[in-house]
């Protein structure tokens, strides 16, 4: 496949995955699912970044990819611990129960 075609495919796939992840985050109520959706968004962005680093021979983009992977891992840890906290506190892991910001 030509480079252009591949780019288009990558845009298509990663874009779809990104919006899929966004949809999961905004539409689902279970916190774990929202976390998975977040990870999906980050992964999609990563894949796109890697491809474009290859296209443009840009090493800084690969550095960003590493950064994003680290951030995603850290954020997954934090998120999972928060979810565990909620479950241990007696409340379910449900976004609808987090209403302290109401009003």
């Amino acid at each position, binding site marked *: 496949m030509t480079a252009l075609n591949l780019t288009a495919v990558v845009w298509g796939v990663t874009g779809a995955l990104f919006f899929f992840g966004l949809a999961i985050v905004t*539409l689902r109520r279970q916190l774990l699912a929202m976390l998975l959706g977040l990870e999906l968004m980050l992964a999609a962005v990563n894949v796109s970044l890697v491809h474009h680093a290859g296209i443009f021979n840009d090493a800084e983009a690969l550095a960003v990819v590493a950064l994003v992977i680290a951030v995603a891992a850290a954020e997954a840890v934090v998120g999972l611990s928060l979810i565990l906290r909620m479950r241990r506190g007696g409340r379910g892991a449900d976004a609808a129960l987090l*209403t302290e910001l109401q009003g």
Partner: protein
Amino acid sequence: MTAAQVPLAAWLLFAAPVAALLFGFFVMRRFKPEWTHLPILASCLVVTGAAFWLAADVYTGHSFDLNLFRWAGAGAFGVDFGLRIDGPGVAVLAMVAFVGSLIHLYAAGYMKGDAGFARFFLVFHLFYLAMIGLLTSNNYVQLYLFWELVGVCSYLLVGFWYKKESARKAALKAFMVNRIGDFGLLLAVLLITLQFKVTHFHLAYLKVVSGAPLDLLPLIGVCLVWAACAKSAQFPLYFWLPDAMEGPTPTSALMHAATMVTAGVFLLVRSWPLIAAVPGLPHAIAWIGAFTALFAAIVAGTKKDLKRILAYSTVSHLGLMMLALGLDQVGAAIFHLIVHGFFKAALFLCAGNIAHGLHQSTANVDDVGGLQKSMRLTYLSFGLAALSLAGIFPMGGFFSKDAILDAAWHHGGAMAVMAMLVAAGSAFYIFRMLFLTFYGARPGQKCPSDIHEAEPILGIPVLFLALGAAAAGLLKGPIERFVVIGFRGLPGGLPELQSVVLNLPGEPLLPALNPVVAGLGTLMALLGALAAWRVTMSDPGFDWRWRGGFAEAMFESDFGWKTAMGRCASAVSWTARFVGRVLDKRGLDGLIEGTNGFARAAGAAVARSAQGRVNDYLWWMGIGTAVLLGRVLR
């Protein structure tokens, strides 16, 4: 003429009462209230002396009109205060001073023992001072100042026994009706300022007499007449006067017989050149006067309270004065004003003596009867004054009433008839009062036998006043001369007026005795007396009281006028309550308070977008980021 040349008497006219008032308020009232009348009686003596001195001065041709100080000025606008001692003013001043002093003396005896003795004398003397100021003012603003002050003193005195509800209501009614009249006077003063640029009487006269076109003059004239009608109790604004009888008798005698109510007539006398220049206005005044005189005379014949009969009689005689003025007879009006002061005050004080003897504040014809034997002095005084009022020769009232009847006769038409009917009516009501009070008992009367004559301090002033009323015919010549000086003379003082001989509109001369008119007048008076006799005395069993029903309702409410005025007053209160409670509190204020609720509702609406749901926030974040990115990437 400078301020230094003003005679001492003119300064004393003001200095004595002011000194007496200050001394009485700060010293006497605090330490020895029952002696408050002493400095005040002394001041009355000084004022009377000063007034007669000034009268003598003017009689020999030394009248003056002088500005003393600038009261208020700004830019081109300026109002000066000063003194005007001229013929008409000093004639009325002499009467007011003399009659007022006698009434002060009477009050010292009448009000003895009253808890508010000091307060009474202080307000009474303040009124005296205000009246003096009114009569010696030389410009409209100063006159208005004293005019209102007189009104306030009237309020305080009518409401003197304020614990009685009728007194409070009467005081308020008197003040409010006078205020409505003052509306007219203040409007007139403002218009005069606009039209003439000065408020000074004489400068205004000169402008009017010079024939310059003055387009505001009709409005000014109407406003002045309106003010005079309120103060001098003419129809339609007379109804405060009968109720003002709630005040103590000295108040009724001084204010509502001799002085305050004549202020309206005096205003018209002072403004006569302006009013005479408005076509049709004098004629209107004559009609108002004639109508009021007849109306009040009829109503007076139906009343039972002694003071109220006299009150309506005052209204009637004021109508006669207005009639005289309206027929351009300034001299006749002033003459009647002065004679009326004497006999009306005497009559009021006699009524006061009777009430005092009964230990009441006022007396009804029901409470008396047959007092001829027990109160001889009062009977004598009353009789003299009654003859004077009815216009029987040779009493003073004959001459003054004759002058007015003469003018009406020569005018002819309905006015002549009305004037003659008034003469008959006056005699009717006063003789009815005389017969019912002093002669034999009629059905329903109590005829108290234990009543005795009043003390000398109450009796002597009344006698003097009655003798004055009887002898007032002798004053005809001097009063004529005063009025001639005022309207045809040479006033000193004002630089603009030096060597200007006046020829103001208005007839100052009193008519010579016309046998036809005199005879007719006397005949009508005798007819009235006869009618009174027929109604009260001739038939022992005839019940002189009006029986109930329509006639009584009509007479009680003055043929419906009082109810009409009552309705007007309630309409005003209703409007006030509507504006204050509905329009303001619920309407305007409700609108403002409603912003509170509006803000809360708006806030609640906006708060619905912040429910705390994480998903919503994520949506907003997503949309926002997309928009920003779109902008940035473009």
